């Protein structure tokens, strides 16, 4: 619609006076959005009417204001919580929300820290285990190399006493080229309670101690000192953990 004839139609005056039908209102509001000159015209009309109203103002009785504010307060009271209260509560809750958030973050961090430190411990443990296994594996590799060597002799130590013959036996791998002697611990039985096994080499007919047998070691074998002049090996049962200078009771013997 043409703006000029729209303004001239008097519809804006009717609009400002609250005299429009809903259809007319919609039409005016649409024109207001589309045409700044329609807006300006309406603004002028409204200002004129507003000034007339101010010119004819009648001061209400003074007590009315307080009564109105009281009613507004009452209606915003606890029975019908208004946006004022909701806003107030929301605002007063802000610092608490911040405290909670901060506390939560702190707690989370502490938790996270302890979790991480646990994980670190676990990892360190795993690394240590790994290292141990690596060393074990290296030792095993050496033994495997020893066993594969054609110069390695497997010496079976068999029972020295008549009555236990064939019951107790141990194996020793001996290689004079590599200068290595290794005892296979798995082949040994457990000693009687309070008794210990001592390993001996027989050199020129005399027993030379090569140390105590380590039954609770990490590996299933024990490396022994290499004595090139050894003629035989023996295991004795002793009553002291550190062993004795001379074998007390020889349990088994094997010749090289």
């Amino acid at each position: 619609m043409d703006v000029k004839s729209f303004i001239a139609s008097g519809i804006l005056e009717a609009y400002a006076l609250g005299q429009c039908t809903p259809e007319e209102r919609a039409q005016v509001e649409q024109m207001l959005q589309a045409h700044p000159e329609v807006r300006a015209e309406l603004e002028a009309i409204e200002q004129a009417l507003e000034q007339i109203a101010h010119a004819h103002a009648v001061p209400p009785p003074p007590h009315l204001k307080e009564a109105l504010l009281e009613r507004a307060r009452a209606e915003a009271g606890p029975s019908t919580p208004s946006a004022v209260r909701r806003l107030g509560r929301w605002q007063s809750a802000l610092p608490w929300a911040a405290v909670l958030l901060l506390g939560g973050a702190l707690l989370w961090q502490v938790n996270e820290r302890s979790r991480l430190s646990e994980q670190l411990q676990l990892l360190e443990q795993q690394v240590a285990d790994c290292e141990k296994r690596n060393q074990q594996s290296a030792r095993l590799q050496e033994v495997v190399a020893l066993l594969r060597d054609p110069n390695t002799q497997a010496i079976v130590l068999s029972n020295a006493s008549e009555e236990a013959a064939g019951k107790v036996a141990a194996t020793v791998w001996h290689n004079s080229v590599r200068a290595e002697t290794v005892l296979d611990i798995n082949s040994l039985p457990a000693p009687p309670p309070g008794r210990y096994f001592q390993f001996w080499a027989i050199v020129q007919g005399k027993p030379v101690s090569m140390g105590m047998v380590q039954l609770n070691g990490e590996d299933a074998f024990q490396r022994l000192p290499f004595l090139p002049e050894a003629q035989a090996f023996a295991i004795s049962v002793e009553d002291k953990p550190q062993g004795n200078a001379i074998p007390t009771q020889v349990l088994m013997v094997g010749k090289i």
Partner: protein
Amino acid sequence: MLSKADALIERLRRREPKALSDLYDAYSGALYGVIVRIVPRAEVAEQVLQDTFLKAYKNIDSYDPHKGRLFTWLVNIARNTAIDALRSAPYRQQQKTDSLDILVHNPGGQSVNPDHIGLRDLVAQLDEKHRLLIDLLYFQGYTQEEAAEKANLPLGTVKTRVRQAIRELRRAFGEQTPAVLLMLLFLP
């Protein structure tokens, strides 16, 4: 730039308790002037004024500045609330016994807002036929049809004259602007 009215609307939207007080200070006189013309009984008019402000305060979110001035919105609420009060059964009952009082009632002559005497004179200077229509439509809440009947004029003539009347006012206010601005400066 935010005008004074815009700032007040913003504060009303935030439901600041002081904002209602300021709204009342700014517009209660002008609105009460309209209300007492429609509802002459003081205690009912007072009730209507309170209801008008409470409605405005509660429904401020439905006020759209793009669709008109705040005062226009307020005066429409006031007028509708007053007309509703007028139509309500208890009021009609009362009106019969008060009829003499209403006849004696002198429109616009109750009390004068001294700040606006200048403007008042301007309105008084309006052509009689224009003044009547403004009075009926704006101050007494008549529809255009009712005003046409009351003034014994065709509806089209009423529409034309309303437009002429407001143009006349705008012209008069335009000439008066510096004085009006001065007066507005001294408003509370």
